[in-house]
């Protein structure tokens, strides 16, 4: 937030926050993402990932990038687009 000349404040535009998304066709339930990012990803009864909705918190973003790179089928994605 910065002050403008009239003494009010201007809301700075925020960068679109990254969100996790999985391509369910590419996903083969290897489970690496669930191991690497348990804060945001859990397993369903068949081993497929359940993603916690909402943007990825700042302190987890580098871990999320690592999880994305580690997916054996590149099914996990980090996107700032709306699904």
């Amino acid at each position, binding site marked *: 937030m910065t002050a403008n000349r009239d003494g009010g404040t201007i809301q700075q535009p925020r960068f679109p926050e990254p969100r996790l998304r999985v391509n369910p066709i*590419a996903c083969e339930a*290897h*489970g*690496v993402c669930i*191991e*690497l990012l348990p804060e945001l990803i859990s397993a369903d009864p068949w081993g497929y990932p359940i993603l916690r909705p909402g943007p990825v918190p700042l302190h987890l973003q580098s871990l999320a990038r690592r999880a*994305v*790179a*580690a997916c*054996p*089928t*590149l099914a996990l994605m980090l996107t700032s687009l709306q699904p």
Partner: protein
Amino acid sequence: MTGGGHVGTIVVTSSTPLWYATRATGLVALVLLTASMALGLLSSVRFQRPAWPRFVTLGLHRNLALLALGFTAVHVLTTVLDSFVDIPLQDAFIPFISSYRPIWVGLGAIALDLMLALIITSLLRTRMGLRSWRVVHWTAYLCWPVAVLHGLGTGTDTPVRWVLVLTACCVLAIAALTIWRLALAWPGRPVASTAGVILIAVTLIVGTAWLRAGPLAPHWSTRSGTTSTPAAGAARPDYRVSP
């Protein structure tokens, strides 16, 4: 370098340390490459234990591959610097142009090229499509046996017992894991799996036969195309098998 050549602050008076380094780094690189390949196979069969999660397999696979590349780089460097035999740097990348054991050094060049392709594409994995990455990664099944053959054919240590045992252990480990991977990859196609197993068994048999007729038989260095270099004066004696 002979005579008064300098490498850093050490005066190298003979090429033997470089020769030892070449052999040692080559062996270590082979072991590391085998370990990385083994972990890659374990990953493809989704090996997992409570104390050994998937990411450990994947992380070690990656790091050991990088380490193997590092040792291979030193292996290439010491070979090039070794003046006993003239092997310029391009022989390490362009196969079969070497004047020293052209086929076997050429195999090493192929293995190195493939290793570079495997590692570079893996580092750029998220930027290239999965399908292209996967096609390149399948060449690992070519890279590793080529590296083994290179070691057996070029290596002057092949007749040494512990070297043979070490190589055999590497080969058997990869063969067993590959059979496991084949069995799991095609559960509904027993014909294909059996064909794969037979192929591996045949390769092992043929390889052993070649080993006995080739590197383990007398005068291999001559038959593989070792040329004596006039610059060194006396030829390096054949390595004798010590009991």
